[in-house]
């Protein structure tokens, strides 16, 4: 782990209601285009394709008819103690900005992939090839996220550019950019989710909905025992779903 945990006055966090997620993939599709991830012809090879947001299928492991399924959308967990930061030899990934979003500075990245190996949530992707868009499709690139060349690692940034835009909008409207209204800054996956399964806000701001949501008895985080102190929370009323969030012994 990174050793020293930093506290930030603003801590952006996501709360995902698994009981509402239908696994449709709209969050993934939204993320791909918002963040200029190329369309991938052989996307079925999950070890070689890039998807900052990925929806996993969970099952309770039982046979029909007792079988149950759930879908778990997985963005970068934006750890309070990010294992990726401490292993980066060139400070390409840091957690030092208010908001607590783990950065990824592409021009600094040397592609060593230590962070990929260190991340317990598999949120980091290495670009093995230069991205290619079908002819003309580059005109639909988002101006808010840079295109990454091959050889660097990339990951979900909680659509950090949207925070910048939200702060600009607040300043333009005479509001405090460090005290944004609930909903003024949300990520693209949260905005476009058709089920309303995703919520986003400042975990420390009592005016933000997520501040209360994370106190739910049904709220949990992934692999909490690692002490990564993530900023992404999940909610499920199903116990078996919550139990899959960490490595429990059979007796626990």
């Amino acid at each position, binding site marked *: 782990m990174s050793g020293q945990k930093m506290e930030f006055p603003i801590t952006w966090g996501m709360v995902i209601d698994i009981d509402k997620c239908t696994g449709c993939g*709209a969050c993934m599709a939204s993320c791909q285009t918002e963040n200029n991830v190329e369309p991938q012809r052989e996307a079925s090879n999950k070890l070689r394709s890039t998807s900052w947001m990925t929806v996993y299928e969970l099952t309770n492991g039982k046979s029909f008819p007792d079988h149950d*399924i759930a879908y778990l959308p997985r963005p970068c967990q934006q750890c309070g103690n990010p294992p990726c930061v401490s292993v980066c030899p060139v400070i390409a990934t840091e957690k030092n900005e208010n908001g607590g979003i783990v950065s990824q500075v592409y021009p600094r990245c040397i592609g060593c992939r230590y962070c990929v190996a260190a991340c317990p949530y598999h949120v980091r992707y290495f670009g093995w090839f230069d991205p290619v868009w079908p002819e003309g499709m580059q005109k639909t690139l988002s101006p808010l996220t840079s295109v990454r060349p091959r050889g660097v690692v990339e990951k979900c940034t909680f659509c950090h550019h949207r925070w910048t835009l939200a702060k600009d909008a607040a300043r333009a409207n005479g509001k405090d950019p460090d005290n944004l209204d609930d909903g003024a800054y949300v990520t693209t996956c949260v905005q476009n989710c058709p089920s309303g399964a995703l919520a986003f806000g400042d975990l420390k701001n009592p005016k933000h909905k997520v501040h209360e949501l994370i106190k739910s008895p049904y709220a949990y985080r992934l692999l909490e025992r690692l002490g990564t102190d993530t900023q992404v929370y999940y909610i499920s009323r199903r116990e078996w779903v919550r139990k899959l969030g960490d490595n429990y012994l059979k007796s626990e």
Partner: protein
Amino acid sequence: MGLDRRAFLGLVAGGAVGTMFTPIPWKFIDDASIWTQNWSWIPRVPKGQIDYVGTSSKLCPACEGLKIMRVAGNPVSAGGNPDHPLSRGGVSALARSEVYMLYSPARIKSPMKRSGKTFAPITWEQALIEMAEKLGAAKGSVAAISGDGTGTVNEVLSALVGKLGSAGCFMMPTEATSAAKGIKLMGGQGQAGYDFENADAVLVLGADLFETWGTSTRNRKAFGATRPAGAKPASTYIYVGPTRNNTASVCDQWIPAGAADFGIVALGIAWHLLKAGATSNAPGFDTFKAVVNGGFGPEDVKRATGIAPDVLAGIAKTLASAKAPLVVTGSPFGQGLGAAPFIAGMSLNMLLGRINKPGGVYMLPELAAVVPGAMSRAALLDGDLPAFLKGVEAGKTPAPKALLVYDANPAYGLPESATMAKALEKIPFKVSFSSFMDETAALCDLVLPNSLPLERYDDVATPYGSGFCIYSLVRPIQKPIHDTKTTGDVLLALARKLSIELKFDNFQQVLKEKVAGLAKASGGFVAKDVMPWQVAAGKPAPALVGGDLWKALETGFAWTMVGQVAQTGMGFASEVVAKAVKAGKAPAVAATLAPYSQLRTGTPATGIPCQDLTTVPDTELVGDTTFVRLNSETAKALGLKKGQTVKLSAAGVDCQAKVHIFESVMTGMVSAPLGFGHTAFDYFSQGKGANYLSLMTVAEEPGSGMSMWIASEVKIA
């Protein structure tokens, strides 16, 4: 003078030392390292002012309102429009693709004419002359197929074909087809609309409510609104179907039942409701009661479906004790249901007194047509396309001399696809107005590409499933990228060439007249601060503020109306139910195909949107092979193992697949994803997996005579 040994060694040593001092080798090494590491060009992001404009999705059947983000006037991404009742900020993976599909490699770049086995580009004028000549010669025998379930362009198409002498004007079969047939047989009027927002107990019989059924984005928003995160849900959703699909995965209860048994389940629940005293004044109630009591008791249903009596009683109790129960019947893959299961489901709504009530089923009026001679939506939905094409293929129905195909891909998106493609081949002159080179366009003689929704004027009128009348405008955000035209305009130009009077010169005029009609309709309003479901629940409808409705619609707002057609003779259609819904049979022991469809693999008309390919899990597609899902008991019975490559055979067609053991599939069922196995489109769709729809066999439903293909037996080896 000779070269002695000493001199030779001196020369070599001198040369070697000299080379060390020249920069040439170092330069070569340096260049080699640079050029082997030289990264190819990667695109730079566009720069310019960012703004957002409103429109509606036409590619996605859920018809969400969209906010298009533009940079320096160019569209770059599509998001949900929070002000639109069918979106409320949400968007499907397919609607999200509206922008980048403008540059899809599958797009047809100009009008084309068949030349042998390939196509040659022609001009629009040449295309119009050719089409006018061929259609003029085919008068009296022109057919049309439309895949646009919501557009006013259907009025232009059906009026033109009608005046040319129609051999049939058909819609691609969807959930709306079964519902329209069901309502007609019940003697009802209007389009069934479901008020999920005000319902507190929803029984879903088969319909993949949150994926492909009707206004699926709106459905999910309505569901989500009654399910606060981490708190007790304010609604109950029960799903009945062969697999725990995307919809069932979030429902409170999944009751496994074969897709052919939805009618039996509905009548089994009716038995409990009748026993508890439910009654109705609707015509045919007594016969209905007799039919239900005569063969759909708890034990009958258990024998036929395997559903335990107490489970069925539990569902009936949940519905009867709810304030606003609602029953929705549909196909798990969006087509082929038949009319009888729909009627059986609707009978439950009638027994529960849910017709034209908040949180129930509203019988919505059709918006007034503006093109003279146009067919109504109900009349269009009454056509039976699979039956027509099967008849053509078998030589029982005369093949039309000409066929116009709009926004549809019948060579791929119908059951028994091979038969349908053969029928299409029998038609001597075919025109496709597809935007993409799909399987049907590849069979046609002329391909006249329609501009994509972001390049054209179009509209969305009350999609099936919507609980209220709604009208939204689709407007051009940018000029056509290729040499394409709005099909509405092309059809009107063609009518002029054929001296057929359709009243309008261009399609925008048609839409303006439609909107002018809406502005005069009483009870309509623009959804802004008040949403239609709030009005249904009792909130006063705001007045349609004076001003330009067209402008409001162009901004991205929707016109909406909470209205219903008063039902005078809607009955139980018991004679249809009695013939088509049969209990008492033993559960199927052979493998039954249970397909499922998802918006992320597009529609037959769009192919797989390139960015959505990443969203397909590797339990569905790996490389070029798709997976079918069976539970371990079925796999054991069939002698199949995880990952095994198998061949599925039915309807004279073979499809390859790999086996994925998935326990949320009923025993005896093989669940297969649709949307794969394209032979046309681009490299994101072509050759990826198999089209399992081709295995589905079409049968005639007793009682209604309608084509149905809800469940087909397959051989797996």
